[in-house]
């Protein structure tokens, strides 16, 4: 390896990052070309890229979850649940908000946030329209809780998938470490929504109009729905106990996806077409770009810097927490987390921390990167998607109107997380 390679790899990485942020070029194209350059110059040999740097666990898990979601989406089960909630609310706006927030958070914990909001948003618009209210407050609340819910499990948000795979933490680990604080954050956030949107709770609501229709019409294919739910249920159980059998989560997801694919009628070409290939290619390319930094020793050098300047692990945790949150609020958290992981791994190694001592660092990264996405309208993909949907309504969500609600909510959640991390891991 010659002395120019670290600079070249860093230059490619920074340029790619800048292009992604500028949004002038599609991010998949950017990383594809960047990775290709690293491949052809030999900085990252193809064999190493495949074997070492591309995280097949993440790709497999993402792919498996995409298939599972695509198949169960066709059954209409999500619409069914949302409409059931609407019926339960009996026309009370508070109950609608709480109900939709809870199911958005729960769905988001098991599906990716974008799919969750894509499923919830149309129903939200419909219900709000029936009640004669602007959907904005409901949509913003759903954005907030989708990011929160997604933080609580391994599969809920891509940063968690990346972290879990890299440091070998399973589904149960995420649930037991992040679950408690997420529940608290969720409850506080719902209260906060009630406060922030108090204006919507006055005035007449046409509550009676909601209870008047049949949510069963949302179900397109009942036998398929039952079969899918059974497999989904088994999948969740399998996720919880996968470590007992030594099976990586990706295998659980792939087996579940394969089972579902076999019992469903849509042909494999259609299913495979609906998979987010650009996203998977983006991840693969990103791994190669970060791999370039690892192969040339850049990440080790940076990790050394961090290790040398660390006074206590707790302070480092808090820096990682708040730093990730701020970064994630404005920029895409996936490249950020993908880069932070080898960095922190290097830091942990150089500080000589045991896995148990290093744990809080990873949980801080997860909390910060995922919850930070609530800070601004561009903080997470789910936010952007909902903003796009709301643009078609009479009362679209603007950057500023979101900021007024989202940023305080995110900061509150960060304070709660800081206290939690201190109390749980250092007190």
């Amino acid at each position: 390896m010659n002395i120019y390679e670290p600079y070249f790899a860093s230059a490619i990485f920074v340029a790619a990052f800048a292009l992604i942020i500028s949004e002038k070029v599609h991010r998949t194209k950017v990383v594809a070309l960047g990775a290709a350059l690293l491949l052809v110059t030999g900085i990252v040999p193809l064999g190493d890229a495949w074997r070492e740097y591309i995280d097949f666990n993440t790709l497999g898990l993402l792919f498996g979850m995409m298939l599972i979601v695509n198949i169960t989406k066709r059954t209409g089960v999500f619409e069914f649940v949302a409409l059931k909630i609407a019926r339960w609310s009996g026309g009370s706006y508070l109950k609608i908000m709480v109900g939709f927030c809870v199911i958005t958070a729960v769905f988001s914990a098991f599906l990716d946030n974008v799919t969750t909001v894509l499923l919830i948003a149309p129903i939200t618009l419909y219900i709000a329209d029936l009640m004669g209210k602007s959907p904005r407050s409901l949509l913003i609340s759903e954005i907030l809780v989708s990011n929160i819910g997604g933080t609580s499990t391994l599969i809920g948000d891509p940063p968690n998938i990346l972290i879990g795979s890299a440091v070998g933490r399973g589904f149960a680990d995420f649930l037991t470490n992040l679950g408690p604080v997420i529940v608290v954050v969720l409850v506080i956030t719902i209260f906060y929504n009630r406060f922030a949107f108090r204006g919507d709770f006055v005035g007449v609501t046409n509550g009676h109009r909601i209870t008047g229709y049949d949510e069963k019409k949302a179900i397109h294919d009942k036998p398929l729905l039952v079969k899918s739910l059974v497999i989904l249920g088994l999948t969740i159980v399998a996720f919880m106990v996968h470590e007992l059998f030594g099976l990586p989560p990706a295998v659980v997801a792939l087996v579940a996806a394969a089972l579902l694919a076999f019992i469903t009628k849509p042909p494999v070409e259609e299913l495979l077409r609906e998979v987010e290939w650009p996203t998977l290619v983006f991840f693969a390319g990103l791994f190669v770009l970060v791999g370039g930094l690892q192969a040339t020793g850049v990440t080790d050098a940076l990790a050394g810097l961090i290790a040398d300047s660390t006074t206590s692990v707790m302070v480092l945790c808090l820096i990682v927490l708040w730093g990730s949150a701020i970064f994630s609020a404005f920029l895409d958290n996936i490249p950020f987390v993908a880069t932070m992981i080898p960095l922190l791994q290097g830091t942990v190694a150089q500080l000589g921390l045991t896995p148990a001592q290093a744990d809080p660092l990873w949980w801080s990264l997860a909390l910060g990167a995922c919850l930070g996405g609530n800070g601004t309208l561009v903080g997470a993909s789910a936010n952007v998607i909902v903003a796009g949907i709301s643009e078609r309504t009479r009362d679209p969500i603007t950057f500023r109107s979101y900021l007024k609600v989202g940023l305080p909510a995110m900061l509150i959640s960060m304070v709660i997380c800081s206290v939690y991390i201190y109390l749980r891991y250092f007190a």
Partner: protein
Amino acid sequence: MWGFPTIATLAVLAFVYFCVVTDKLDKAKAAFFGGVLLIAAGVTTLEEAWRYFIDFETIGLLVGMMLIAGVIGQTGVFQFVALRAVRLTRGRYGLLLVALSVITAVASAFLDNVTTILLLGPVAVFAADALHHKPYLLLIALTLAANIGGTATLIGDPPNMLIGSAAGLGFHSFVIHTGPPSILALAVSLGFLFVARRNELRPTGRTISADSFDETKYIRDRPTLAVSLTVLGLVLAGFVVLPAFGATPAAVALVGAGVLMLVNRAKPRELLGHVEWPLIFFFLGLFVITGALEKVGLIVVVGRFFASLTPSPFWFCIAILWVSSFGAAFLSAVPFITVMIPITAAAVAHLGLGPLAAEPIWWALSLGACIGGNGTLIGSACNMAMSAISERTPEPVNFRSYFRLGFPAMVLAQLVSSLYLWLRYFAFQ
């Protein structure tokens, strides 16, 4: 050796072949599910499968070339060339058959065979209809040409990609070694068609009027055509030149695809749509199953048995040629070759042949699997694509009607290939 892992792996393999041959269940699902099942059952692990079983060279080469070829195919250049040929031959059916076959063979050497057939098949149907001929003969000729053309280069046919990756043979090696016999095979196959169906191919005096079609309207996007052909040219040059710097064909193809993705205006989703993901997943599953077969020790046993059957490398070579011809014809080339390669490698090792001495065996395998795909309708994916196209015509090609022409053509071609192998690699050594 005959414990649970072996039985499980053999069962999965049999299931996949069953799906391939009978087309009852989708083969990509079968192979992929089979592979996942083997991982879940503990026969192998995800890590082992990813790191050692899955041939990323082949996958990378496939993905890269599919993307580039897809963009080129979309520009309409192939339809243009084919229709230009129709115009130039002025409807003489025999001449048209040869011209279209040659175009198909050349296209198929650089694109995958299925895309070639999908692009040129409709042109053939159109031309046949205009001349009041039944299209089946033309379609079969194109299919034969597609498989043979694909034999000539590293990137022409998935079996060659697999062989190239396994044996470390590069683009130029294939052209030099499998190129000439491909030309011979094409001549022999077409010659057979002319003899067997000489009545149909006699000139009838019917022509296609020059105004009944306009091939220039097929080229819809000249800039993209120019760019994508340039990228293809650079990639081909890269295949020849860059291995000296340590870059593998897959890396070159992926870089080419990356560049094309960047300069092409289309969104990544559209560009990635050119990749035939079912085939990729079919391969992933097959790799895992084959890896499991190696892990349980079956491959080595079969390979050694094979090697012990034949008295000399020459006869082993011929045996490989004919076994893979029939294997490809009746079990379909891709699933057959995926298992055949490690068996061949084991046999080669058992015979104690060095890389140079082993080369003729790999060429025999390539000729056998690729040209063997001409033998029956299920022999190769492009045959099935042709069958699908022919379904829309009044007299669709079925297994029997294809077999009557394809199988003899394949056998004749392989006789010539056997002679070629003997003359080139063994007669004067």
